[in-house]
């Protein structure tokens, strides 16, 4: 039961938000810390969920808005879970990449083409980063099936690569920092940017019915995030303090962190790129109504 639980919460201006320890969610945290949500008459209840892959099914029940990635949104929608994007989160651009494929000199992987026959550690085999990497491999003429894939938890990646258990690793911040700290590590590039020069890989989602009946709330949410992004740009120290608090990362990692480029723009064109990439690289054959995946801009 409980399929139509979209509006089981009385006050639409109370947002139950879930996300993980990702720097992409920093604007939400900053907006909470700096009272920006209050200014927009929004009340936020936050829950940290590290495994965001489970979130689409819980929207409308436990949460209203959650952090997600395009591949998850597309798969969920295709299986009849009515999710939609309500806001962008970050944007990958040439001078501020968030995705990394990192090789190791000792394993002889200093170029993406050398991955054939090697073992690549990935965060999630079905995740956005890996779909992008596969598309990239194809572009470079490497059969993705020739790469041996294992899933490696972010915190263990640096050790695994250094110990030679994997030959290359596909990762994001903040893990990329510690992986790259090793002398043998070689950054091969950002797989997202191989799909498009500018691409959104992280976004905020909700249930479709919730989104359509709360357009105003969504607009306020986006406005709050935009304001928070501005605050971040102007108050680096304070922003990093907030980052430290909700991620729990140690000081050196906080200091070294390169903050992503924030955006609240909903980019249907990116969704299409992701769907193409999934079809191309992952053999995804679902039929998805992309229009339903983006909430109408308020």
């Amino acid at each position, binding site marked *: 039961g409980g399929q139509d639980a979209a509006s089981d919460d009385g006050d639409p201006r109370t947002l139950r938000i879930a996300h993980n320890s990702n720097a992409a969610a920093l604007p939400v945290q900053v907006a909470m810390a700096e009272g920006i949500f209050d200014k927009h008459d929004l009340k936020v209840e936050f829950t940290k969920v590290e495994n965001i*892959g489970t979130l*689409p*099914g819980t929207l409308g029940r436990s949460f209203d808005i959650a952090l997600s990635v395009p591949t*998850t949104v597309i*798969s*969920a929608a*295709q*299986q*009849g*879970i009515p999710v939609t994007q309500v806001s962008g989160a970050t944007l990958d651009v040439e001078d501020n990449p968030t995705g990394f494929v990192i090789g190791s000199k000792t394993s002889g992987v200093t170029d993406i083409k050398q991955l054939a026959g090697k*073992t690549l550690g*990935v965060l*999630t*085999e*079905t*995740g956005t980063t890996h779909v992008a990497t596969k598309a990239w491999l194809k572009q470079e003429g490497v059969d993705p099936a020739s790469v041996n*894939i*294992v*899933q*490696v*938890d972010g*915190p*263990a990646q640096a*050790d*695994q690569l250094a*110990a030679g*258990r*994997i030959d290359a690793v596909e990762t994001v911040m903040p893990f990329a920092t510690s992986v790259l700290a090793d002398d043998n590590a070689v950054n091969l590039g950002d797989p997202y940017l191989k799909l498009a020069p500018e691409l959104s890989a992280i976004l905020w989602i909700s249930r479709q019915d919730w989104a359509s009946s709360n357009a105003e709330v969504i607009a306020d949410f986006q406005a709050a995030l935009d304001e928070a992004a501005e605050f971040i740009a102007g108050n680096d120290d304070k922003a990093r303090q907030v980052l430290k608090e909700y991620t729990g990362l140690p000081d050196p990692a906080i200091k070294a962190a390169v903050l992503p480029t924030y955006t609240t723009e909903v980019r249907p064109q990116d969704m299409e790129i992701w769907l193409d990439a999934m079809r191309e690289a992952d053999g995804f054959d679902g039929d998805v109504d992309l229009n339903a995946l983006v909430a109408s801009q308020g």
Partner: protein
Amino acid sequence: MKAKKERGGTPIRGLLPLVALLVIWELVGDPASPYFPPPSTWIDGIQPLIDADKLLPAIGQTSLTFVLGLAIATALGAIVGTLVGASRSVDRALSPSLEFLRALPAASLVPVAALVLGYTTQMKLVVVVLPATWPILLTCRTARRTLSPVLLDTPRTLGLSTWHRTTKILTPALTPAVLLGVRVAAPLALIITLLVEIVTRVNGLGAALGAAQAGFLSAQVYGLLTIAGILGFAVNWIVTRAETSVSRRMRGTV
């Protein structure tokens, strides 16, 4: 007291309640449900895996780890359980450390094991064997402790070597306990095998399951779960059969 005719293993007719449950699910289930698709959709769900020739290798990989892990756990559990049951000081020396180890969640052991052993079947085995050993060890320990002292004195007074004492007295006397332990351990071993595969995506049913879950392919998830369940049931059925036939021969003592 009545002369019952006992057949080996659990009677198959005991599956009736489960079948009834599945039938009801089929009848009331909504084929489009993203969470609870009825059984008839499950086969369609796994069809893509069959078409891609991925299913059989996955079953093979998982079975290998599961069965091998269970076998190692059986040997280890039986041996350590017997030792610990026989000697109070060995028991006291090892128990806290063993209790510590068995409470550790497999998922946090995987990265450590992978660091040492790489993403290999050996790594999977190490992570699987640890928790699966426990039921066998504990059951065996208790059985060893409750053995009649006279039964243990018998081979001693007859001058049997330690080896023969082990093979001729301890082994048969403790076999029912070991088999009970294996029955408890089998699903655990299977769960951990799948968990390791889900976490690492190293080949197997668990990897497929993890991928299906991430893609919200619930019919496929149920299909894979059913296959895993059948695997576990099969091993369990074999062990139960063995247990029944052993305890029938042991009727004098039970």
